[in-house]
């Protein structure tokens, strides 16, 4: 690798290249991927906002780049985009905190 960094923003546009080592699976993945983001019962804008929230949960810089643009392209506002990120944060925070119940259960089991 000529680049010293694990992440390189230029790699985002090479996403399609993953098919190179496994064309059949690559095609299946991208066919599915493209189908997923088409307007269905959810609008394209709603799907882009969900993708933006998930991108923050999986903390994928490529995804954040792609779905920030994607959300803007689909007409999302800055407010909607930040609300989506807060949903990611709330679920992550909540996921830690809800385990507090487990901690409390165990504590109560152990203490006199």
């Amino acid at each position, binding site marked *: 690798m000529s680049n010293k960094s694990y992440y390189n923003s230029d790699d985002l*546009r090479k996403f399609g290249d993953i098919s190179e080592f496994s064309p059949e699976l690559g095609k299946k993945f991208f066919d599915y991927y493209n189908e997923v983001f088409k*307007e269905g019962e959810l*609008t*394209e*804008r709603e799907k882009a906002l969900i993708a933006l929230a998930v991108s923050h949960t999986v903390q994928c810089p490529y995804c954040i780049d792609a779905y920030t*643009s*994607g959300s*803007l*392209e*689909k*007409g999302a*506002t*800055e407010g909607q985009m930040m609300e989506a990120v807060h949903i990611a944060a709330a679920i992550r925070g909540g996921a830690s905190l809800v385990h507090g119940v487990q901690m409390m259960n165990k504590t109560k089991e152990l203490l006199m």
Partner: protein
Amino acid sequence: MTSATLKRRQHLLSYAKKQLDFLNQPKESGEQFTSFESKLNETGLDPLKPTKIDTFQINVGYMCNLTCGHCHVDAGPDRKEIMTRETMQECIDSIKDTDISTVDLTGGAPEMNPDFRWFVEELSKINKKVIVRSNLTIILANPKYNDLPEFFAKHKVEVVCSMPHFTRLRTDSQRGDGVFDKSITALKMLNEVGYGKEGTGLMLHLVHNPSGAFMPGSQESLQKEFKKKLFDAFGIVFNDLYAITNLPISRYLDYLINSGNYENYMQKLIDSYNPEAARNVMCRNTISISWDGYLYDCDFNQMLEMKLKDEKLQHIKNFDLEALEAREILVDQHCYGCTAGSGSSCGGATS
């Protein structure tokens, strides 16, 4: 936007040649962007030829009451280029006995041309469909423009107006403070005389161009969003939404460079090249006429001063439809803007 035009500031990018030079420069890494011509060649479209010319897009002057951040014309209050009635008459004489069915009036703010109403009336008389590209705010800019909705309705003019977004923030960031509210008022005035309403035959289309360095999303989805938001919040109705890609020239190019987005945006356009959109580019069925009567392949080529190759065809005085339909369309790197994604034209997506 209150800033002066690039031309007024004698900005480098106000010179067509400098823009073309810039668009043909390699990236910072030294790598060259793929040339548009080579892409056309791959699609079997090089040289690009017209199909059949059915639209005359006439730019009646670069003067405008706004100075929008994305304007490819570099229009503004300080621009003095205005089409004369004589040139308008030459346009009428050229097309009256042809199959060219549509005259698309653009600018600047076309309504600011002192002979605008005369021109529309004359075009109606020869039964041409007239489209006006309105910035909406002009209707409120001066009492003399307040009756434009009635005037448009009387002549069944199709109104295509700029409305980049259904939020104030996104619209005003591109077009200037207060533009959103004025546009909403103007749209209500157009609705009042029947525009955008079923059964009236008065067509009102909105144009969305992104307020930033990204491409427009799906026109169909955006149209649904716009219709819902504008109706729910303001009771506004309209016919179609045209999603138009910003081309990297003039003030939008200046914005891309200053914001550090130029290379990524250009690359995105190139990566999104769509052969179907290339087959449907509007320069294949449209001729653009400048305020001083010169002919161009499109309004963008007009701004880049890319006059037709054949000198004999360059001016409306020598109008020759058959020869024009046999000409070669001139292309350069900015053309990627019309062939990216779902394609882009003055009528929105092309594929």
